[in-house]
């Protein structure tokens, strides 16, 4: 669960006009393209889960014959210990992973990581000190202990609130899962922004000194305009590389917490709880499809992000060595 770690990113500044070359080059890399294809499938499967799931993921059939069925044309990945259709549960778990990565990406990566990084790098001074020292403190903390403490503390008292949400909002039965989702995200985000903020800041610091920024400022451009129009385009490639390198860790945090029973638990679907239920000697001996079906898709998901992150770093690097 190394989400506070900084992914390795070369310290270079990219000229803004070259940034589309990254897109063109990535198309030429076969491994990276395979990874992107898998991620596209995974994300669309997750988003479209309610549409494509062949069964209700929570529909139980507890007779002996219905439980832990092997894959068949009716149940593509078989059924789990409570006779629920595993394929549908995997799809809904993918949905949890997809939503979770998007939420953490927007709040931690975009809002806090990019926003604070740009602010710290461009404004400098006490803002820079404050942001960077906070990041330092957060990355020095034992993340796991704190995430466990946060989730454990808040989970124990959500029953009343989930009943209220169930009665007063459109969430209905999903209210409990929604709250658990919020708790896990709330425990992840504080540690997830530091890496991207550091990368963005060091880039912004370098770009700030460029002549075109000086020219924009001399023409009276506002700070907002300078940041969004002149600094952001230069920062973006490395920011994206950093994010893609940390995505597996972010998604892994939710899976790990759910595995411990502190994240999304049944009736909600998560790969963590699926894997947890599929383990045990009896399952491994006689029903190995349970573990393969629930762990396989998410392992490939992590692998795809790892490969993509690696390919992106490699692209940036090869251009620096060529430039020498």
């Amino acid at each position: 669960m190394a989400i506070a770690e900084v992914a390795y990113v070369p310290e270079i500044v990219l000229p803004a006009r070259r940034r589309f070359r990254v897109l063109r080059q990535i198309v030429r890399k076969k491994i990276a393209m395979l990874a992107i294809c898998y991620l596209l499938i995974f994300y669309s499967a997750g988003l479209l889960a309610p549409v494509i799931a062949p069964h209700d993921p929570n529909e139980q059939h507890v007779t002996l014959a219905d439980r832990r069925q092997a894959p068949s044309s009716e149940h593509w990945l078989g059924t789990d210990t409570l006779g629920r259709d595993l394929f549908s549960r995997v799809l809904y778990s993918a949905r949890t992973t997809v939503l979770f990565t998007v939420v953490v990406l927007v709040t931690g990566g975009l809002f806090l990581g990019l926003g604070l990084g740009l602010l710290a790098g461009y404004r400098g001074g006490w803002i820079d000190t404050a942001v960077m020292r906070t990041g330092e403190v957060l990355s020095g903390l034992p993340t796991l202990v704190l995430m466990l403490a946060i989730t454990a503390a808040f989970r124990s008292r959500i029953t009343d609130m989930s009943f209220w949400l169930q009665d007063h909002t459109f969430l209905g039965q999903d209210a409990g899962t929604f709250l658990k989702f919020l708790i896990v995200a709330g425990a992840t985000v504080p540690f997830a922004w530091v890496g991207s903020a550091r990368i963005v800041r060091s880039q912004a610091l370098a770009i700030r000194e460029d002549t075109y920024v000086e020219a924009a400022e001399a023409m009276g451009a506002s700070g907002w305009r300078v940041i969004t129009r002149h600094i952001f385009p230069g920062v973006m490639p490395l920011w994206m590389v950093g994010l893609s390198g940390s995505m597996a860790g972010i998604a892994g945090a939710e899976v790990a917490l759910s595995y411990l029973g502190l994240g999304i638990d049944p009736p909600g679907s998560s790969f963590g709880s699926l894997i947890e239920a599929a383990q045990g000697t009896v399952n491994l001996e006689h029903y190995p499809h349970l573990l393969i079906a629930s762990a396989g898709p998410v392992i490939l998901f992590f692998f795809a992000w790892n490969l993509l992150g690696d390919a992106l770093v490699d692209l940036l690097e090869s251009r620096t060595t060529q430039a020498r």
Partner: protein
Amino acid sequence: MGPGLTGYIIRRLLWAAPVLFVISVLVFGMLRMAPGDPVDRILGTHYEESAARQLRQKYGYDRPLYVQYVKYIQNLAHGDLGVSTLHTDFTATDVILPKVWISSQIGFLALVLTFGLGIPVGIYAALARGTFIDPLVISWWLALDAIPVFVLTTLTSWLFALKLGLVGLSWDGVYSTHIILPVLVLALPGVAGVARFMRASVISVLGEDYIRTARAKGLKESTVVFRHIARNAMLPMITVIGLSLPGIAGGALFVEQGFGIPGIANESLQAALAPDYDVILALVLFGSVLFVLANVVIDVLYAFIDPRVRLGARRG
């Protein structure tokens, strides 16, 4: 060690004091503000209100938050980290230290293995750059890194212990063959990260003029690789090694759970669930102190190895 270095160490350690203070306030506040307290855990679901009141009084939870905090800091100044409510009659220090020792030994073995494999793999991949071997090697380790540790523990213990009967599983102390699997499961997923870092570092060294000079002098390729490339590429590696050192004292939850190791990460989980206020705080502070120390050690090491590094100018 010149006067500049001593001054630098002192400055860094002084800087650590406010950081630790902020951490302690934050975590202390978060723990006490969060719903639920240890008394619920001790007494179970049905209890007399008077019993709860008595216990809260005993542990001082009935007093205002700032009074509790001041009391905590006073005790901390005397080296007292408080008492465990989960393991009654044990101080937080007594709960933590023996388990930290177990986890650290296993963690250290794993760390040696991770870097012992990762560094050569990284050098190899960098030298094989442009061929199919480089992406193949790196992808293989990245694939291993993608498997969640709790899946890895299940699969390896099932295969190697139950099916093949190669190793025992039950916890038998650090000095036994039973820790082979835990150390491997702990070490191997990390190889990818080390190898990638080392690979990048070697590639940046490859472009340097002195490598061309060394080759032009007609030095043997092995001499160039080991003397010139590997040694220089190892320099940035010091940070990575140094920053992973404090982590080993924190233990690895899924490895400890999967193999039944009575380590500190298991204790952390129990403490977080209870909640065991003083033990959680002790764990967090302990981890943070180690992190600060590791950073200072890294900077000092750099100053020794590379005289060009001016400690005053380095950012933390």
